[in-house]
């Protein structure tokens, strides 16, 4: 066509990834602030602790990205982490299960909890946020019930110890796990039919259905993903702490969602990617790290998280979200 001109590829790339790019700039700024306010900040030891910290929220966010792409929040992840953590410890310590069997059963538990979420959303047609809130209460309650509200030490099991403190090539083992999860999910979203379908369902579920996509199947798999990764993250968590805590992640229920939204995923669904989610997690972790290094209290950290969330969601809605509205 005569009136077609060569569009600027770079410009298009910048436009499509604007939230990730602005996040990178914000992060560079944050790192500069960190360096100025604390001389400890740039030490390798500190970065190792950032890596350890980001691996928990990061692994969960990777799964959350999949379910949130369909539209709606999933707030059950941290409760699932707490409950499956307790079960993991009980299996290892009380029941003396083999480590790998315990890992497998924790995964099964995650799948079951994911199925509950999927059932409530798909069959009972409950809003995702409310549906997952239900699961959140159930899992949180059960976490307390199974040990009568007692934390459970996992002691000296070598595999658990390695997960918590081990390094490969000088980088924490947990971080490697998270990195592999991200690569897999990045690949899944980009190169598989399931990945394409997630975007379609989130962007316009009517058109997705009329494109021959099985909405229930896509949603079910996405919720399973989200819950499964939450339950698997518990193994990293228990490894790092050395115990399963009944109140693990209590009050942090929206941390992963905040990171994901910060990474440019639209709350309405259909827009965003896993790279953004990782950047969001890294940003929040570094922010917390700087606060801790400077002796800012937990309470102020919570306040700042709220501010960051509002800014992120505000930007998302000013941009018009990703979902198509009619």
């Amino acid at each position, binding site marked *: 066509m005569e009136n077609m001109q060569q569009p600027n590829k770079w410009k298009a790339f910048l436009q499509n990834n604007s939230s990730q790019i602005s996040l990178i700039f914000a992060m560079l700024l944050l790192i500069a602030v960190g360096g100025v306010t604390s001389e400890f900040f740039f030490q390798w030891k500190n970065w190792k602790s950032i890596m350890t910290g980001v691996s928990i929220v990061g692994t969960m966010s990777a799964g959350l990205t999949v379910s949130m792409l369909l539209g709606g929040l999933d707030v059950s992840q941290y409760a699932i982490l707490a409950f499956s953590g307790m079960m993991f410890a009980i299996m290892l310590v009380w029941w003396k299960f083999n480590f790998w069997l315990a890992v497998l059963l924790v995964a099964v538990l995650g799948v079951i909890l994911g199925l509950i979420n999927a059932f409530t959303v798909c069959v009972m047609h409950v809003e995702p946020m409310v549906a997952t809130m239900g699961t959140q209460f159930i899992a949180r309650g059960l976490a307390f019930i199974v040990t009568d509200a007692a934390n459970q030490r996992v002691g000296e099991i070598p595999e658990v110890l390695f997960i918590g403190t081990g390094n490969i090539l000088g980088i924490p083992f947990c971080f490697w796990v998270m990195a592999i999860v991200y690569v897999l999910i990045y690949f899944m979203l980009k190169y598989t039919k399931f990945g394409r379908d997630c975007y379609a369902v989130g962007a316009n579920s*009517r058109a997705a259905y009329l494109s021959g996509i*099985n909405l229930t199947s896509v949603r079910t798999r996405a919720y399973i993903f989200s819950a499964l990764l939450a339950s698997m993250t518990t193994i990293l968590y228990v490894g790092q702490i050395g115990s399963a805590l009944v109140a693990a992640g209590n009050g942090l229920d929206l941390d992963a969602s905040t990171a994901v939204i910060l990474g440019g995923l639209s709350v309405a669904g259909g827009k965003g990617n896993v790279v953004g989610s990782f950047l969001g997690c890294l940003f929040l972790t570094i922010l917390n790290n700087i606060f801790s290094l400077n002796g800012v209290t937990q309470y102020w950290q919570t306040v700042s998280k709220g501010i960051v969330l509002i800014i992120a969601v505000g930007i998302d809605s000013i941009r018009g979200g990703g979902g198509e509205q009619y």
Partner: protein
Amino acid sequence: MSALLEMKQITVRFPGVLANDNVDLDLEAGEVLALVGENGAGKSTLIKVLAGENVPETGTVTVDGTVMDTFTPSVSESLGVAVIHQELNSILQLSIAENIFVGNLPLKHGFVDYKKLYADSLAIQRRVGLGHLHPSLKALNMTVAERQLLELAKVVSKEAKIIIMDEPTATLNTSETEALFKIIKDLKAEGKGIIYISHKLDEIFAVCDKVMIMRDGKKISQEEVKSITRDEIVTQMVGRHIEDMYPVHERPIGDVVLEVKNLRTKLLKDVSFKVRKGEILALYGLIGSGSDEALRAIFGADKFESAEFYMDGEPIKINKTYDAMAHGIAYIPSERKSEGLFLQKGVDYNVTISSLGAFSKHGVLDLKKETSLVTEWIDRFRIMTPETDTKADSLSGGNQQKVVLAKWLSTDARVLLLHEPTRGIDVGAKVEIYNLMEKFCEDGYAVIMVSSDMPEVLAIADRVNTFYEGRITGEFTGSEINMDNLLRYAIGGEV
């Protein structure tokens, strides 16, 4: 007499596209100006400048002596410009009456005066042929054609000097189009200026005074309708001569592929029909006749009460769209924006979303192969897009329609269900689509189509079933397929 509207040297640029290149447009009071051109020629872009939705890079717009200095929809409206957009934009959650009078509801003691609202609404509804619907009906529950008439009602209710209609008849059938023409003639007699965009060229000779032809963002020519022929318009539009508008011929017709028995919905009463190998079957009916519902039911698009389906004589179950797809059935919806497309996704994503299997190996998509498949479709349909991954949202209406067609034609369907397949498509691309349908049938596949475009139905259907009030009233083949029969049986039959 000075012109009612003067647009001078309008230039509009989008990323990668020069959509309007130094375009002039003049309109007198009491005149109907047709604006024609291929998909992506820049027609909608130009009228969106007048509507205050596009800001031109250069150029001036003068309405009735007043220069438009800022380009916003409210400025445009205050100058007396009203628009019926190519894409329907009624607010689905609101009623007919509320849609017509939104922002201007009659009040009584501070509350909405529903009695007056409904009475006023009904008066306007009758004018545009929506008198049979209650003003409190939500737009959500209206068919696409009814929503098109609602757009017209909204414009008629405003006291505008200039009325723009961007493809108002794309989903209307013959009698509804007649009603629209009558309204246009009334408006013209009242001294309004009308800009009329359409790909149905016959309409131009029916209601327009002048015709302005655009190509590649430029104004090519402007003529009196009296002094130009249809062929001349087409040749100027597409830059070449089109021999045969409907290149569909007799072909051998085989056994029954798909049979629908006793289809029952709220509206349809035990409807049965079948389509054979190599056949193009048209279901023809007016708004509310159920022809479109029948088509959608076969694909599982909407819920139905009961039905039996047979594929090659074997009973099959269809409850959901993916059941139908698994049996080789494809459905192309008429409402491309809400049902056919993912507007925020690229052309490539949209084209391949239903045929990912064609380029995946062990469940892994081969993105290089995807790009080359998409490029093939872009070339074949001449889809005007700067890049293969340009957002569907930024394509012109007709090009969006081509994307939806490509999406389904690239699946390995054996039965195509087409709902307004050529809605908003230019003459050149229409021929291409008919060619594809013909080829599809020659390969022994079958097509069922619902179209409001009468000439299209007459020319390409091998058999027609007419629908009226949820029943099939007639079946026609060969020379029985004529306008007389179809119209008569679409309003019940024994008239």
